[in-house]
């Protein structure tokens, strides 16, 4: 009993921190509709700045310590305002999700910045002044500071409630969360509202970080681990709902604490490690919640967002003669690459082609179907693992494994997609992420079958394909076939039905289109193409590891699609090429390559808010009918 009580308190303390990070993200999304990838980075900065501030002000006694924390949170809030004013404000008019690209760039820049300022070593801050001991609860020693944290969560929740319900500013925020257009119509100074919301969100992230100083060291991994936790909580609670975020934080904090408390249990003769389950438990919770409640626990169905006229894609046109000729020339030039390029050009081009196919398969969902996936790497990974497992475990010849692997991915996509297509918008995106993480954790844990965290080695092409130029030609043919097939499908009735579903589900219903079935089929198809990319990738590397289906690979895919331009068909391929090439070139030639890559992406974002191909299409006259 006593241990249950204490684990419950542990869960509460953890929930407070989770709530602080998540609530800011939720506010920002609610008002600005920006999926702020950099939120975890702001949290990380909160810890680092607080570490420095607390150490600097420590001599001033308790006031110095607690004041230092507040200063850190305020500083992060100010940085948030700055980011909004300098960067995000310029791209609100861009197609939805494009802002995600900018915040992704910020993640890279902030990480390198932190490394540059604070160095690589973990920095463990001092214990909380005045709360550095432990009290006895149920015969166990419990840290005073954790009790303080337990109180902070509800306190912040209460203050936010007052702010949102008792001030004019709060009324505006709530109105904007429900209907963004309405606020514009009310004649509110939208710029100021957005900046202040972003600053408040950043402040809360910074505060969450600062409050962790007495509990954990500042370190450079915190950004990504915090952001995935925060997203999960925001979505489980319901996007834009602050009480929802609190409830979700509570549930996840408690579920984790009890998984740890339970430890290993023998169920029907099998030892189940609940402790190991903490690797993925929040994503399991999220998947269950979203399947049962498609808008999170306390969220409401999102008001249908009418796309601004500038966001509506122009009708599809058949490729112009120039474009066809250009594609043929490019194809020939690529086919002949081994003849005139260096050996490394060939190797790099294999990666570029694979990622082009992967990005195009993601775009197939994001663009025509309007279904954003944050977990598309799952199918890339299933293809890669499918190839490896069929080759090594099932004894398939390499060629057969390559052919069969996309079907493995398609099967996975069909399974996950069945649930996902019942959702829409960010919730759909997050359910794809949840499934991807669940898939990842299975692959990561199943040592005897998938090789666990080490993955599998020895996945090499058959002898006749083993020379790089030969394998390159095979890659080129398969990827080109995949890209052309997807393009053809987009022009076919099926592709039109997808675009119809994106444009107006209501109209689809009224003309008898079974949208869920169509979207499910699209999900499966996209999974198959991603799986093909994954299988080609596995054979080009000779090995697979869980990294092929990690979040970062999904994010890379998103970045490629957005970079190229989500409203164009060739955009994803160009985005994949640009991103892969940039990363390769910059990483090989500079030390602070992450920030340089981030800056480059920021420049592209600000200069070409339609993506690279979107920009070209607009610049060179394929846009019309702008009246």
């Amino acid at each position: 009993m006593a241990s249950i009580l204490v684990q419950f308190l542990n869960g509460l303390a953890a929930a407070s921190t989770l709530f602080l990070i998540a609530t800011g993200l939720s506010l920002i999304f609610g008002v600005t509709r920006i999926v702020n990838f950099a939120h975890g980075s702001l949290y990380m900065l909160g810890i680092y700045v607080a570490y420095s501030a607390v150490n600097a002000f420590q001599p001033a006694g308790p006031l110095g310590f607690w004041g230092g924390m507040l200063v850190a949170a305020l500083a992060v809030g100010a940085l948030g305002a700055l980011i909004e004013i300098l960067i995000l404000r310029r791209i609100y008019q861009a197609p939805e999700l494009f802002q995600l690209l900018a915040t992704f760039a910020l993640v890279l820049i902030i990480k390198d910045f932190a490394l540059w300022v604070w160095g690589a070593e973990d920095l463990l801050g001092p214990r909380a002044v005045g709360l550095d001991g432990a009290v006895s609860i149920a015969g166990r020693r419990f840290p005073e500071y954790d009790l303080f944290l337990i109180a902070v969560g509800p306190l912040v929740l209460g203050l936010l409630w007052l702010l949102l319900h008792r001030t004019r500013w709060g009324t505006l925020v709530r109105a904007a969360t429900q209907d963004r257009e309405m606020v514009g119509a009310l004649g509110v100074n939208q710029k100021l509202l957005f900046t202040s919301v972003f600053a408040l969100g950043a402040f809360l992230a910074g505060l969450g970080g600062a409050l962790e100083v007495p509990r954990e060291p500042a370190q450079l991994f915190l950004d990504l681990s915090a952001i995935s936790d925060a997203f999960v909580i925001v979505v489980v609670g319901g996007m834009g709902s602050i009480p929802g975020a609190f409830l979700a934080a509570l549930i996840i904090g408690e579920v984790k604490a009890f998984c740890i408390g339970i430890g290993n249990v023998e169920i029907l003769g099998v030892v189940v490690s609940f402790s190991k389950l903490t690797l993925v438990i929040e994503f399991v919770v999220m998947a269950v919640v979203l399947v049962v409640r498609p808008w999170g626990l306390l969220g409401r169905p999102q008001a249908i967002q009418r796309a601004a006229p500038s966001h509506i894609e122009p009708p599809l046109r058949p490729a112009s003669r120039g474009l066809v000729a250009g594609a043929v020339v490019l194809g020939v030039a690529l086919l002949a690459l081994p003849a005139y390029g260096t050996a490394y050009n060939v190797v790099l081009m294999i990666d570029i082609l694979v990622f082009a196919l992967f990005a195009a398969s993601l775009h197939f969902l994001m663009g025509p179907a309007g279904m954003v996936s944050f977990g598309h790497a799952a199918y890339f990974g299933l293809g890669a693992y499918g190839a490896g497992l069929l080759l090594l475990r099932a004894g398939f010849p390499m060629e057969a494994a390559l052919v069969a692997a996309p079907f493995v991915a398609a099967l996975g996509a069909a399974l996950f997609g069945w649930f996902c297509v019942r959702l829409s918008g960010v919730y759909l995106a997050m359910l794809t992420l949840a499934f991807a993480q669940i898939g990842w954790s299975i692959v990561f844990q199943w040592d005897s079958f998938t090789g666990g965290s080490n993955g599998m080695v020895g996945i090499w092409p058959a002898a006749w394909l083993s020379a790089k130029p030969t394998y390159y030609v095979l890659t080129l043919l398969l990827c080109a076939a995949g890209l052309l097939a997807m393009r053809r499908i987009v022009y076919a009735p099926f592709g039109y039905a997808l675009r119809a579903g994106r444009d107006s589900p209501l109209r689809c219903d009224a003309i008898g289109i079974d949208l869920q079935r169509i979207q499910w089929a699209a999900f499966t198809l996209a999974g198959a193409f991603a799986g093909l990319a994954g299988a080609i990738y596995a054979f080009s590397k000779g090995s697979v590891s869980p990294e092929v289906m990690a979040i970062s690979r999904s994010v890379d895919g998103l970045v490629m699609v957005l970079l190229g331009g989500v409203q164009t068909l060739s955009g994803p391929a160009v985005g994949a090429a640009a991103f892969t090439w940039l990363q390769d070139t910059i990483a090989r030639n500079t030390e602070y390559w992450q920030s340089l890559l981030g800056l480059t992406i920021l420049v592209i974002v600000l200069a070409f808010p339609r993506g690279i191909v979107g920009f070209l299409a607009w610049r060179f006259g394929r846009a019309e009918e702008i009246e």
Partner: protein
Amino acid sequence: MSAVLAISGLSKSFGGVQAVQSVSFEVREGELLAMIGPNGAGKTTCFNMVNGQLTPDSGTVRIGGAETVGRKPREIWRMGVGRTFQITATFASMTVRENIQMALLSHHGQLSRLWPRASSLHRAAAEELLARVGILEQADRACSVLAYGDLKRVELAMALANDPRLLLMDEPTAGMAPKERIALMALAGEIVRERGIAVLYTEHDMDVVFGHADRVIVLNRGELIASGTGDQIRANPEVRQVYLGSRGEA
């Protein structure tokens, strides 16, 4: 003339509030029936029970004699029901012609095809429909740049694509200029009469109601309080009191 749509004893409540209470009426072939009533009278609820978006608590909805309660909107569409919306719902990223082609492709069950070019299928049929609603010259323009009145016509053409026997039009002229309203309703009237389609529509504009409806039914607080020709409704004292009375005059 036989009843295309027959509704009897339809009821629906939301959390204790009776939105629609044992409403019964029929719409016959070639007839335009306007459903009117003050805000909150239950028009939209009624409408959505007919088109399948809501399931009634009790009562029956028959289309051409077949029960539709419990069927999904797209199944009801298959039974020959076309719809237009109060706020137009078209495919903004497609051309006008492609919008119609989508309805035709769906009608012919060809939406799963992965190979042929969608824009080359049912082209002639689509253009015929566009010509009928008078916007053929707009066929190649994107829906996103169309004038609102023309979008309404696109919707009408889409609704006609599966040769419906019943047309459900929710506020067909909302948001249009007065002159356009009359033109659109005249066109709709012409088409339904030549094809023998039954129409049920809701409307706020009394000119559109009395100028085009063959019959009018009036809902108030979820109940059907009157039914008859335009003249009969105008003369009905109860209607004048609860509905027209509140507006001053018709």
